[in-house]
């Protein structure tokens, strides 16, 4: 019984450690508010309903990739009957802004920036940013 203080102290420290992510969030003021996304102003519908895009846009992009590159299928009929060109930079980024939409959400949920952008170009930053680097 003489160790009661130590046991309670240890338990307290353990609980604090266990709940540290919560406190961390409180300190960072993350709260329950999601990422601050900028949605396209002039478009209401995406190629799939928003909640589906939310959870499965990555599968859709992979499907588009394979169909365009390997099967010569270039247009996608959306759920509302609209037909879209299956292009990442051309179609997706004609509505969405990568920095204020894709990147913000990915960084919020802690997803590593996908390697799409190693090759596909964000139209918002074409020449000016790249030209500053010297050619080898």
């Amino acid at each position: 019984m003489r160790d009661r203080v130590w046991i309670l102290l240890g338990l307290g420290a353990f609980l604090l450690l266990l709940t540290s992510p919560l406190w961390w969030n409180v300190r960072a003021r993350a709260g329950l508010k999601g990422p601050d996304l900028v949605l396209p102003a002039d478009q209401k519908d995406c190629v799939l309903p928003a909640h589906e895009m939310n959870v499965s846009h990555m599968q859709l992009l992979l499907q588009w990739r394979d169909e365009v590159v390997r099967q010569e299928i270039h247009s996608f009929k959306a759920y509302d009957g609209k037909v879209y060109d299956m292009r990442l930079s051309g179609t997706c980024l004609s509505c969405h802004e990568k920095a204020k939409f894709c990147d913000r959400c990915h960084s919020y949920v802690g997803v590593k920036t996908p390697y799409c952008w190693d090759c596909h170009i964000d139209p918002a930053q074409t020449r000016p940013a790249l030209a500053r680097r010297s050619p080898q």
Partner: protein
Amino acid sequence: MNISRKQFLKLTGASLLTLSAGKLWSALAYAGQAVRHPVQLIRGKQLAMLIDTRKCAEHPDCTRCIEACDQAHNIPSFKNRAHEVKWIWTEPFENVFPSEETRFMPAGLKERPVMVLCNHCDNPPCVRVCPTGATWKREEDGIVMMDWHRCIGCRYCMAACPYGSRSFNWVDPRTALGELNPVFPTRTKGVVEKCTFCPERLTRGEEPACVQACLAGALLFGDLNDPASEIRKQLETQRTIRRRPELGTGPNVYYVI
């Protein structure tokens, strides 16, 4: 059970022989049958190009086709030759057609710059060696296509291509790009690339970028399997040559000399 060491060894040997008999038999049975790659049957179009080197020679300083291609496909221009990436470029005649070279050639022919690009072969060796299926011959139009998503950069295809049509990205190409064409991707370090006959333009009903850019009409593009096509008519009315046809690759870029 009591067995002597001799009996044990005999039994082990016999069992091993029995177990391996099947394998041995199949190895012997198939030894004479080499793996064959039959030439694919023609299913659709075979897109091809006819290059009139005489017209090119009339405009020795013209690089319109090269520039159009570089611009359309975000091809980097490295100063270091070891890092070069090329889809369409010129080589001296004697290098493009080494077997056509003779001691007494018309003046200037030996050094005449000749446009070279991927030959989109009938029987492409690059496709045969690609371990990931990142390059393949499209059945619908005969284009030797690339999927850069799938390329692992092993460069087997570069070793296999007898025309040197493929380039490897030793360095991040974005470090050597001028104005970017935002609708076409760049490539990334560690990926092989080459001419694709512009399928992204063909689907829009446009000709390849180089063909469209050529003002001299030196590049003719069309379907070899269509008897009414202009390229077929041209091929049937004049003598043309191809690069190293003796290799059996069936190149689909033809040249008028």
